[in-house]
């Protein structure tokens, strides 16, 4: 492959006037080596799943080396993984998983229900201070175990039938539980090596994994090398000999290395390169809807002008999303009028709609919106003599800056004076959590494919509810959905909750994120999907 790959990429990259026949000839070239070179945009924090920092690049590596009770298809569908099948009790609170007979760690030891019990206790052990432990809070006693109030053994998970069956007790019916099990926090950890080596069980000389690949080399900030795990139950179906994960933080450098043929896949390229890549290597340039929402938070706290619903509605309706998405971001974001991104499983997004004073829908009419926004601000007591002044905070990146400048200029015709304040991400989020802003940029990438994961941010008093939006009716609906077993009924309740928040102008929905990947067209088994999860287990080079 090494000999072939650079040639096709170079031809694709340089010859703008490329003919289809050359392309076909290059793509049809036979695969010779089977190691995938994959560019990721950050460094893995640890192979210990309790120590992950939350980067999306981390889940790529972890999903290749570990496997949970369920796994994902190339399209993102949930498939049986370490569990061959499962039953849910009528109240939705008890899940019983049967583990597959042929599940093994890379050292040949069987993967048992004990390994799941161990892994989940390990995650929730307060001594391990896992950042993502809350992902398993739906389990009975998980929170109490994590705070140290209860012993680890009290966690609602147990191994039965000599480790062939795993029984999980949930606090309440959790319809997205299977989605949750695809997250790395739900992977098993090898109890036998932990008992032998303690915390060093993830050192490369000791590590065992139960996924399709197992790591053999780690040069910090450079690359992680894995080889196919021969003990993997479907090893005969895994086409690759291994995967090399190259840490490439600079997005443009990643593009250069992909075009030079050094990478088969580059996870993420900078949005500003999209037009060029689309032009030069269209077959390799991927862009797809992603499970993320880009929005502006309104500060609902007393004393801020945005506590007034009229001000929020006016500001919200004056934002021209199409201009931001298409002209400013060059089509690398999708405009949105809803907080929950379109494409979430079993959910219909609830778009914000804007009405004039008579109640006519003016959502599609910019002039009418601007006129109405002006009226609303005047109603709220703002005019030329007493202009509305806002502090808009964003975290420092070029993209956020462009958008903030654009939004403030969209508000200027309303007589709104905007003070733009930017800070590095750490400071930004701390500042807005303390409430020192009127409008602030924020984004949310879902942990799992369920609308609940977004709507949870709007509950009263929740840490990520930066604007302190509080509506009892919303909270009631949210809680009701959490205990509703019927999926259609639950869907309707969640939709009502979002509609309510949109009606309140709780925030400014602005854009949906998209995933941006560069993928060698000679690769198959790699599909765009909304979660942007691409297990290498399915990937192969076309013969």
């Amino acid at each position, binding site marked *: 492959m090494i000999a072939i790959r650079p040639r096709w990429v170079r031809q694709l990259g340089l010859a703008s006037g490329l003919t289809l026949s050359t392309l076909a000839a290059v793509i049809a070239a036979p695969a010779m080596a089977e190691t995938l070179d994959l560019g990721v945009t950050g*460094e893995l924090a*640890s192979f210990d799943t309790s120590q992950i*920092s939350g980067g999306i690049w981390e889940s790529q590596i972890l999903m290749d080396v570990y496997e949970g009770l369920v796994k994902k298809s190339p399209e993102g569908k949930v498939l049986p993984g370490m569990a061959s099948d499962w039953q849910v009790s009528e109240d939705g609170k008890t899940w019983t998983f049967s583990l597959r007979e042929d599940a093994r760690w890379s050292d040949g030891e069987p993967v048992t229900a004990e390994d799941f019990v161990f892994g989940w206790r390990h995650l929730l052990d307060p001594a391990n201070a896992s950042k993502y432990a809350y992902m398993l809070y739906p389990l009975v006693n998980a929170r109490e175990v994590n705070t140290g109030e209860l012993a680890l053994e009290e966690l609602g998970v147990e191994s039965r039938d000599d480790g062939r069956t795993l029984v999980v007790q949930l606090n309440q019916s959790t319809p997205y539980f299977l989605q949750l099990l695809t997250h790395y926090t739900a992977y098993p950890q090898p109890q036998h090596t932990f008992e032998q080596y303690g915390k060093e069980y993830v050192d490369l000389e000791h590590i065992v994994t139960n996924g399709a690949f197992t790591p053999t080399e780690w040069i*910090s900030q450079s690359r992680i090398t894995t080889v196919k795990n021969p003990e993997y139950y479907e090893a005969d179906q895994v086409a690759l000999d291994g995967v090399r994960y190259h*840490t490439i*933080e600079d997005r443009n450098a990643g593009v250069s290395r992909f075009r*030079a043929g*050094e990478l088969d896949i580059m996870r993420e390229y900078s949005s500003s390169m999209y037009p060029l890549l689309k032009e030069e290597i269209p077959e390799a340039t991927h862009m797809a809807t992603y499970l993320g929402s880009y929005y502006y938070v309104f500060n609902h706290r007393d004393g801020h002008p945005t506590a007034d619903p009229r001000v929020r509605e006016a500001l919200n309706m004056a934002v021209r999303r199409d201009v931001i998405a298409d002209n400013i971001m060059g089509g690398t974001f999708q405009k949105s009028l809803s907080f929950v991104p379109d494409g979430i499983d079993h959910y219909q997004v609830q778009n914000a709609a804007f009405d004039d004073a008579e109640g006519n829908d003016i959502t599609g009419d910019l002039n009418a919106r601007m006129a109405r926004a002006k009226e609303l601000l005047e109603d709220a007591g703002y005019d030329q003599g007493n202009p509305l002044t806002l502090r808009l905070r964003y975290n420092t990146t070029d993209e956020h800056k462009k958008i903030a400048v654009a939004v403030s200029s969209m508000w200027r015709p309303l007589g709104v004076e905007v003070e733009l304040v930017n800070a590095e991400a750490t400071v930004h989020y*701390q500042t807005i959590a303390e409430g020192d802003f009127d409008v602030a940029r924020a984004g949310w990438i879902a942990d799992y494919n369920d609308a609940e994961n977004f709507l949870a941010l709007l509950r009263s008093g929740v840490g990520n509810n930066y604007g302190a939006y509080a509506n009892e009716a919303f909270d009631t609906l949210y809680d009701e959905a959490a205990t509703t077993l019927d999926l259609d009924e639950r869907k309707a309740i969640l939709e009502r909750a979002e509609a309510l928040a949109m009606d309140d102008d709780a925030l400014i929905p602005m854009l949906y994120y998209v995933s941006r990947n560069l993928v060698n067209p000679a690769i198959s088994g790699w599909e765009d999907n909304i979660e942007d999860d691409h297990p290498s287990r399915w990937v192969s080079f076309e013969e």
Partner: protein
Amino acid sequence: MLSYTLKRLAQAIPTMLIVITIAFFLMRIAPGGPFDGERALPPEIEANLMAAYHLDEPLWQQYFRYLGNLAQGDFGPSFKYKDFTVTELILQGFPVSLQIGGLAMLLALAIGLPLGIIAALKRNTAVDYAVMGTALAGIAVPNFVVAPVLALVFGVMLGWLPAGGWNDGALPNLILPVIALSIQQIAYIARMMRASMIEVMGSHYIRTARAKGLTEAEVVWRHALRPALLPVTSYLGPAIAGIITGSVVIEQIFGIPGIGRYFVQGALNRDYTLVMGTVVFYGALIVLMNLIVDLIYSALDPQIRYDD
């Protein structure tokens, strides 16, 4: 000389202590902590993290805990890269940075010094203007421009060299980053060497040497070169310490696993232990390089002697 060296090393201890203290408290004054990010953590999770990293203790206690660990050579675990200690990160990254930086410095000296000398000897001629014009451009164009252009031209378009990656330090992978890193240094050294050479060539003892009937080449080699090297030598101390501790720009663009990025990322991530580790390391390196420069000084200039 030996006692002078020992004295200098002893003086380094209070210097380092001051550096550590300032860095420690500056880092803590910076808003935001290692676990603040896009997602607010549930309070119980945050409490676990604070306890695990002793961040819930009073600051003075953390400070003395850090000094105590440091005295035993323990830089602590990285807050961000959990499978590595700070010592491991520095030990893994430093040889890489040393290799790239060292080669870049050698290249810069090999090209910069002769260019500076030639420009000085051909002062105010087309040669001088060409050399100095190029040097000025070398200083003016930052390496975050040079590096991607090199990668694009030689890696992507011509395909002669890898566009990035370390590949365990294989020669083809070294060439572009070393060139990108050396360009500014070549320019600095050439300009400095020219200025100092011009000054030396105008001094009395050069006139005397010429009066003795020495050829111009003998004048330059035997009498002008050594004193002219003095300012460059004093520049080299901190410059070498800087260049061998890596460059975040070069490392990120070429995907090189050096330690340069830790200075920047450690600070941005509020990875307290990693920042402290790099500060201590860099500080010690500066102290060491300055000492070496002073010792070289005495070899270059007979007027300088380090007696007790």
